[in-house]
Structure formats: C-alpha cells, structure tokens
C-alpha cells in the first residue's frame, strides 16, 4: 500500500454530530455522535434498539439522516447511496450480509468494480483477486468459483468480510460481523483487524461479544435509547460501568404488579424436555405453568423464536419431548396445536406477514383463527361470529372500523388485532414473539395489563422479547437463551438487567457452560 494509508494521524476520519433519524413519528436515533480516527478500532456498544443499526446505516449511505452533520476528513458530507459511501472509502460488513446467493464467491467479491479487459469482466483476474482477498482473511479453503448459496453461514460471513476489504476501505464498519463465525474464524478476524489497524485503517466494531471487544477496542462509545451516552478510551471504565450505561433508563411504573411467587413451584402445564432442532435448539428443557408468565431472554436470534415455533408445530425434525398436562403431545402444525386438548396460540413476530392478512378487514382477521367455532353446519353463522368479534373489539379496545382493511390501522391497533385473533380461541397457552416491537408506549402498557390478566385467569404465557425491561417488569421467570441453549433461569428478584445482560453476553466469567445444566 502507499504511504498515505500507512501514515497514522489523529485527525478524525469520520465524524458525526447530533445526527437524528426519524421514521414518521418514531425516532430511531435521537443523538448520533461519534468520532473515528485512522489507525484505531472503535467499539460501539448498546442494547437491542439502542440505535446502533440506524447509526451504521447512516454512515454506510443506506439511510439519510433527518438532522445533524457528518464530516469526512473535516469536510461536511452526505451519502445518497451505499455506492457513494463506498467510493469515499466507507465500507460496511452488514450483519444480514449483502451477498447474492446465486452468484459465485468471486462474482460477489468483485460485484461493483471487477477487473476488466476490453470493457468485459476479466474472470481470471477476478478469481485471482478473490483468492488474494480470501487468503487475506485466512480462508484459502473457499473456492472462488463456488456459489455463495452452497456455502454454510459462517463461510459466507468470511466472504462478506473479504468482499468489504476488496473495496479498499478507509473506514471499515463491522456490524455483528462475527455472530455466526466459529472460534477459529473469530481468531483469524481478530488478527486481521489488528493488522489492518497497524496499516492505518479506521475500524468501527459493533458486537455483543465482550471478549472480542476486550481484545480489540481502543475506544468505546455507548448508546442507549437512540442516544450517544459516552465515548471513552477502552479500559478507562469497568465492564460494570459500561453495562450500567447501556441500561441507561429508569424502570418506570409501566407494568402491572406481579403476584407473589408461590411457595411450591406449580406443575407445568406445558413442558419441553430436551428439545433440539437442527443446530438452532440444543437440549432446551423449559416449562410454563398455568398463571405464569415466562420470558425468553438473551440476544436476538439465539433460538428463542425456534423454540416457540417448535412448540407450535411449525418445525419438522424436532427431537426431544413436548409434554402437556403430563402426557406427551406432538403438534404437527398450527392446526393441531390450536385444537383441543393443546389449545396453543402463537402471536408471531412479524405481524405484517405471519400475524395478519393485511388486505382483509379487521373483522375477518379477528375470526380467522377460530372460524370453525362460528359454524352452523357447513356455513359460518355470521351473527354469532359478529357478536364474538365485537366483544373482542371491546375487550382489546381496538380503535378501528371493523370492516376496513387491517392494513389501514396503526401499528399498535394492528398488534391488538393480531393478539385478539388468538384470544378468541381462549388459549390455554399463549406464545408471543416480540409482541411490542415498534409499538407506542400506551399500547404497550395495555398489552402488559392484558397479559397479566390472562395469566391471573389461568393462562400460561411464554413471551419472547428483545426488550429487557419487559423481562424484568412483566415476567415471573426468565430463561436466557444463548446459542440454542437455555444458559440461565432467573426468578423473582433475581431478574435484573445485570443478570440478564451478563447471561446473554457471557460476561463476567458466566460462560463456562456450568449453568447450562441448571
């Protein structure tokens, strides 16, 4: 490389000041402030929803900020597209990857600026370049001619990193870029990043894995609730202090009071015994009793979703046992899971695709899961159906005209419809997948109250949420998932943000597998 890239100076490469991003009434980033210098690794930390992803997307040109200033080399700048950001040397390795599965590895690596001869892509040179970059990231074993589709996720992530390096970045952003990597690969990436830092590259490192940050970070910025909390040289604060900064908000009186914990643990109504599926669920044993709200915690995507889907019969090839009322059951799909005697209900994560039929009316959506109940002979009894729907509308306080498409409703009301649809079943067990994501505070409170009322009336509730507040405020018990295992179970006063975070992040020496048996 030339002298320009090896020269290390302390002048900031990219600087963000008071960057704000709003999506309609929702503020995703309230105060984005960050300053990255060449030749250093800057760690960005924060909980889910702290605004990190929005911040990165703005830096990478995917989103344009609503307000605020971004400076590159001291000059004010605005990126209109990822391509433009890349031309300025800002390259991002996205968590959700930006590979095209049907193209070969080499094609992916050289997608925007392949070597050319007579205007056409020089495939030989492109393959050679891909090999060089793959060797750089320590993946000589990947064949550049292989289709990305045929590679396992961990290899794809390495290809993504090689692809980013091929853009000759000055600022390399890694957003959870190691989440799917094996320990070996992480070691290689860490070594590579150190080398690149020595060559003068500026690296922004976003990760939930404390030990990687410990090993790499020169500087650290903490975000909470869409705001920049503090930036400091890494090592100048203890990890406890960092965690407290990440929490950064008072626990409000949003939640209904919890009932006192029973002396004797009640017998579980629904119980999973050593549940396994592919490599996403490993030996998960967890039960929920009538009247209990059990939270599934941990970082996003550690198997919580798959656990709920397995209980609801959406996965095939599940190993282990599901026990209801003390006898084994085998749900073969939502139809058997929702029928007696199981009477399970699942409020899925994505209400727009799995929870609701958007073009259909509110009324049609509300009765969709329970149509056979309102039957008289082969036909649906419209009067009885309508009565039940109106009752549910009152109970859930859905502010909407029943005969308008559900797509016209606000997010909060849509979610009420998605939940109400399942309450019409009178479920014995209610499974919920992040039911308050992207919903206003008022509706959240209504949903919390509703869930507690349901539990008090004898429903067993299993709640997966990415919001730690909800785990603490709402749940009687919390199971922390990591890597498909339940690594920790917290109860009563033991449910604290510190305990959840340290379990989820494997901080403070919690990650020795000893608790897995618990």
């Amino acid at each position: 490389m030339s002298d320009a890239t090896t020269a290390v100076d302390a002048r900031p490469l990219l600087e963000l000041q008071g960057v704000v991003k709003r999506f309609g009434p929702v503020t995703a980033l309230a105060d984005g402030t960050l300053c990255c210098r060449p030749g250093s690794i800057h760690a960005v930390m924060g909980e889910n929803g702290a605004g990190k992803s929005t911040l990165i997307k703005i830096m990478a040109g995917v989103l344009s900020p609503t307000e605020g200033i971004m400076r590159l080399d001291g000059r004010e700048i605005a990126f209109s597209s990822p391509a433009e950001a890349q031309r300025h040397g800002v390259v991002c390795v996205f968590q959700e990857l930006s590979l095209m599965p049907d193209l070969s590895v080499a094609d992916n690596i050289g997608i925007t600026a392949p070597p050319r001869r007579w205007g056409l892509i020089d495939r030989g040179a492109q393959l050679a370049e891909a090999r060089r970059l793959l060797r750089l990231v320590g993946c000589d074993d990947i064949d550049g001619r292989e289709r990305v589709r045929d590679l396992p996720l961990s290899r794809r992530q390495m290809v993504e990193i090689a692809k980013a390096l091929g853009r000759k970045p000055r600022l390399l952003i890694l957003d959870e870029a190691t989440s799917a990597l094996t320990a070996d690969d992480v070691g290689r990436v860490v070594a590579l990043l150190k080398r690149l830092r020595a060559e003068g590259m500026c690296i922004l490192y976003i990760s939930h894995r404390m030990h990687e940050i410990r090993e790499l970070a020169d500087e650290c910025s903490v975000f909470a609730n869409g705001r920049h909390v503090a930036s400091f040289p890494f090592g100048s604060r203890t990890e406890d202090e960092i965690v407290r900064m990440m929490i950064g908000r008072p626990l409000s009186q949003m939640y209904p009071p919890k009932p006192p914990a029973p002396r004797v643990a009640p017998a579980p109504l629904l119980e999973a015994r050593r549940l396994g599926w592919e490599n996403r669920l490993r030996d998960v044993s967890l039960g929920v009793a009538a009247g209990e709200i059990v939270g599934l915690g941990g970082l996003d995507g550690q198997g919580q979703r798959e656990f709920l889907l397995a209980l609801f019969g959406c996965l095939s090839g599940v190993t282990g046992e599901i026990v209801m009322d003390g006898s084994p059951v085998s749900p073969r799909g939502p139809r058997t899971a929702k029928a007696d005697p199981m009477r399970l209900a699942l409020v899925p994560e994505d209400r727009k695709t799995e929870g609701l039929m958007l073009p259909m009316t509110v009324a049609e959506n509300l009765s969709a899961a329970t149509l056979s109940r309102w039957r008289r002979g082969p036909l649906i009894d419209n009067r009885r159906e309508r009565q039940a729907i109106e009752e549910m509308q009152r109970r859930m306080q859905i502010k909407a005209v029943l005969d308008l498409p559900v797509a016209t409703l606000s997010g909060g009301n849509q979610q009420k419809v998605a939940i109400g649809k399942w309450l019409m079943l009178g479920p014995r067990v209610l499974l919920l997948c992040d039911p308050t994501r992207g919903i206003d505070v008022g509706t959240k409170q209504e949903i919390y109250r509703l869930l507690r009322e349901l539990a008090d009336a004898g429903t067993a509730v299993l709640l997966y949420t990415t919001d730690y507040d909800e785990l603490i405020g709402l749940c009687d018990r919390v199971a922390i998932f990591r890597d498909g295992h339940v690594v920790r179970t917290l109860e009563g006063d033991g449910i604290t943000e510190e305990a959840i975070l340290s379990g989820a992040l494997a901080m403070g020496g919690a990650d020795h597998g000893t608790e897995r048996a618990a």
Partner: protein
Amino acid sequence: MSAHPASGIGLAVRHKLLPILAFVIFALMFGLYLLLQPHGIQTSVLVTASNKGALLALVAMAQTLPVLTGGIDLSVGAIVVLANCLASNLVNGTPAQIGLGVLAVLGTGVLAGAVNAMAVVVGRLQPIVATLATSTMFYGVSLLLRPSPGGEVDDDFASALTGDVWGVPVSLLLLIAVLGLLWWPFSRSVTGRGLFAVGSSDASAFMSGVPVGRARASAYLGAGLLAGMAGLLLTLIAESAQASAVQAGDFTLNSIAAVVIGGTSLFGGSGGLVGSVFGAFILRTIGDLLFVSAASPLWQPLFQGLILLGAVSLGALPLLRVRNRLELFR
C-alpha cells in the same frame, strides 16, 4: 465447506446442471426424430426444424432476461406480433430500404422494451401487471399497422435468411451469432452481472452498490430487442403477417415454458439464455416427434404439459428438505 475444492469442470457441471439436462433431453428427442424420418436426414428437414426452433428460441431468450431479474415480461409475444406486422410493411424494396426496414423493426422492439422498462423501473409497477397492460397496447398498435392479414416481404431476403449455407441452416447461425456476439459479452459486462445480482437478492445488490435500476432496465430493453428479432424471423418464415392476439399469447406462454425447462429460476438470479434455447428446442421437437410417429396432433398439448410439469418438479425438489414449515411460504 470443501477442504478439497472441486475441479473447475465439476463445479461448472453442478452449476449448469439444468441447462445440460435440457440439452441432453433435446439431443435424445431430436436424434429420435431424425431416426424416424421416412426419407433420412435431409437439409430441408434440418432447415425447417431450425427455423421453427430459432423463432421460439429467440422469444424464450427475450423472456429469460426479465425472469433472471426476478420479473417477467408478458408482452414478449405481443412485441413479436408487433414486429411481425411492421416488418410485413417495411422489409421490402431496394436493399437499402430493406436494411432500413430491418433497423426500424428492431428499433421498434427496443422501443417497446423501453416502455416496459419505464413502467417497471421508473414507475415501479409489478412486472406482471405492467407488461400485461403494455402487451395489450402493443397488440393494439399491431392491429393499426395490419388490420387484415397479408403483407409483402422481399423474397430473396427471406429465403436467404431462412435457407442454408453449405447445409447449415442460416437461422441456426443467426441464433449462435446472437448468443456469441450479444449475450456472451453482455453476460460478462458489469450491467449483465447486475442482472443476475438483482434477481438473486435485490437488497444485497443495492447494498453492494450495484446499479439496480440500470440492470433491470437492460433486461426489458434486451427482451424487446430479442422479441423484435423473433418478429422479423417470423415474417421471413411466413412471408406475411397477422395481428393475432392468440399467436401473441401462445408465444408468451411457450416462452415461459421454455425458460423453465431450460433451467432458469422463476425467482430470478440463476439460469441463462443458452438453457432457454434448448428449452425452446425441446418444446418444438415434441410436436415434430408426434408428427413423424404418426400420432394424432391432439396429443401434443398433453405431452407438452407433462414435460413442463416434470421440469418444474425438478426445480421444486429442494423444498422437500425444508425443516421450518414457515419457509415454504417465503
């Protein structure tokens, strides 16, 4: 994944399995057809087969480009008919006039493609609806150009392009020329690869800085050009034209069938023009085979349908391995 990288040939075969399969099926069928010929293999037999095959192959190639981007072009048949009607008016007279006429016909094809590209890329309409609408527009223009069947085409020009050179059908040479001089360089250009990238994952393509709009537009423009060529060839074979909505519809449906048989995924991202050529040849040969085997032509649609169903089933095999039932709906 593989500690011992597969050989280049092995990988190429694995990635092009469906087109290779299509070629083998075609070769077997065509071989059988030649064997069953009552008078042995004659140039005239080859020329007729090639002309009919090349015609559908051009339409199938036109269809392949939008399909590779994850879209579809329901107007390719109508563009063929439009070009056919225009050519029956223009491809006549002095050599210069013929030349200009050919250019006008091809230009019209590109123009029609540009209308589709505008609707899909700039207007952001769904390709299936947008091209359904433009298809009717193009048919309407065809009717105005040729209200009643007929038309004149220069005889010498027609027989030159639909005849043979030393026993090799000219239409086959044209087809190879289109593949070699247009498709090969295009597929190795940045825009051409953008086409695959967009079809494979448009979000990733955008994130990677691929000119997404340009890649999509090029697909519809290319489809227009190739459909225009097909219309010209149709005119030279038939030496007349007819503004027929039924014919347009047949071309479109057969083109989609050929694309699928040739191994291009309807979800976009994988496949190519060569496979579609074999797909088109297979569809044509079914009819010829039934003809020489003296079976009733009434059997043809049934067999064509069975072959198509078989081809689509091959593509659906991976779904049997899906373990998360929700993924079946994605």
